[in-house]
């Protein structure tokens, strides 16, 4: 996708997440003490404040919690892409993540619809982004 996409500002918590996307893996974190699974990554468990954490690969399956098609008023970087659809996805593991939703003109998204995570490289920046598609 050749667009002037905003390059993510990667921080120390998220660097492994952005690296693993290049291998086609969407990584979540799990607390070894309270087993809370969360996203995005943090240095402590936001639920119990333990620092015993492990990375865990998401299955990539989820359902749409809500969605919208941006038809006007996009930021400069996304103006040429409109209309595009973005969604809140509830992953199988329970996390709610924000992402782009690809659907052809013939398919209309709906709340509760099954989606699957795919991966797209931005050739300008080399970053790989997760994108969701209707199953």
């Amino acid at each position, binding site marked *: 996708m050749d667009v002037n996409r905003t390059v*993510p*500002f990667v921080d120390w918590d998220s660097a492994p997440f952005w690296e693993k996307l290049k291998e086609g893996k969407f990584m979540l974190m799990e607390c070894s003490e309270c087993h809370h699974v969360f996203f995005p990554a943090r240095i402590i468990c936001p639920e119990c404040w333990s620092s015993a954490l492990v990375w865990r690969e998401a299955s990539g399956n989820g359902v749409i919690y*809500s969605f919208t098609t*941006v038809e*006007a008023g996009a930021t400069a970087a996304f103006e040429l892409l409109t209309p595009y659809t973005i969604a*809140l996805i509830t992953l199988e593991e329970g996390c709610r*993540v924000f992402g*782009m939703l690809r659907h052809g003109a013939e398919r209309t998204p709906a709340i509760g619809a099954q989606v699957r995570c795919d991966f797209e490289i931005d050739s300008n920046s080399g970053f790989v982004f997760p994108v969701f598609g209707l199953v």
Partner: protein
Amino acid sequence: MTFNPKQCALAGIAETQVGRIPDRDSMQMYAELAVAAAQDAGLRKEEIDGLITGGTFLRNVFMHNAVVSEYLRMRPRYSSGLVMGGGVSWCHALGEACNAINAGVCNTVLVIAADPFFTVCARTAIDLMAEFFDPQYELPFGFVTPAMFAFAARRHMLQYGTSSEQLAQVAVSQRRNASLNPLAQFRKPIAIEDVLSSRMICSPLHLLDCSPISDGGGAFIVTSGDRARSLRKPPVYVLGYGEAHELEYTDPNRDITTSAAVRSGKDAYAAAGVGPEDIDFAEIYDCFTITMLVHLESLGFCPRGEGGAFVEDRRLEVDGDFPTNTHGGLLSHGHPGVPAGIFHIIEAVKQLRREVEPERQVRNTGTCLVHGNSALFRDAATAILSCHHSV
């Protein structure tokens, strides 16, 4: 709650026309608003010993409150800068002012916010506001403010059967209120069809479901009830105040059709010793039409999910059953960026003092609720105001 704001009152207000103000920069508006608010209260500069300012979208001013204070040649006991806290800011500032007064830190606080947001940023406003989004989990995915509220609107439609017509009714009623307010930016009445046929921004939200971009500013002065009674205008007492902060819209446990206002409202009602049934009219931060429906529910004016039906029959209009955003709200009175929510408080004071134009004066002005919210209903601050010491 140990917080007892009852000793505090709003004693002065000032506001600019909202819309286009091409001949004033931000600091000039701050200065003129300070003077006008002091005059309204009948206070001399030396009698104001607290200052809260809101910054500006135009550039990052370090220690903005101190810069304003220097411009006005003030030497306050208490000074605080609110750096773009979003829609919750001005109800929060009212609470801060009451806290500082009740704690004995100072006696009289001037709160000001102003920005020529339209004149300077009309073309760049979307990108400017985007700087507040998460730079790795939101922005690179094409996130924009209306999208977040569209998520909530679509959930509300699915969960409760709310229609686009019901959302549009909020915009129509507030436009009618604005049509009677000479200080509002958009005063030409509209119909539901106008909202539905306006350009789609982020489905299901149309252009007229969203706030415009405006220039403007406002100020208010808070002091002790005792002092307020000796000043020029009738005191507007702060009977109750509550604040609450929830988790983000991405938290799996958040139902994005409800607001932190459930908690802030509960605390404010408890402090004032009233309930939603005692409120005569309300001024609620309304960045999008869906924001109004969610808050009418979360603040207890109607059961959850029934906001859409509640706003029908022109209920929110100045002569309706539950006048709300009587100045026209952000949707029609205008949205000048940083100062956006301050006009809800100013309008409440004007209505409670019964000093607005007769054709838009609310009939029953015993008790008013004002509410600010930010970040898709995550942050909330609620105040209960009245000219009477108790309800």
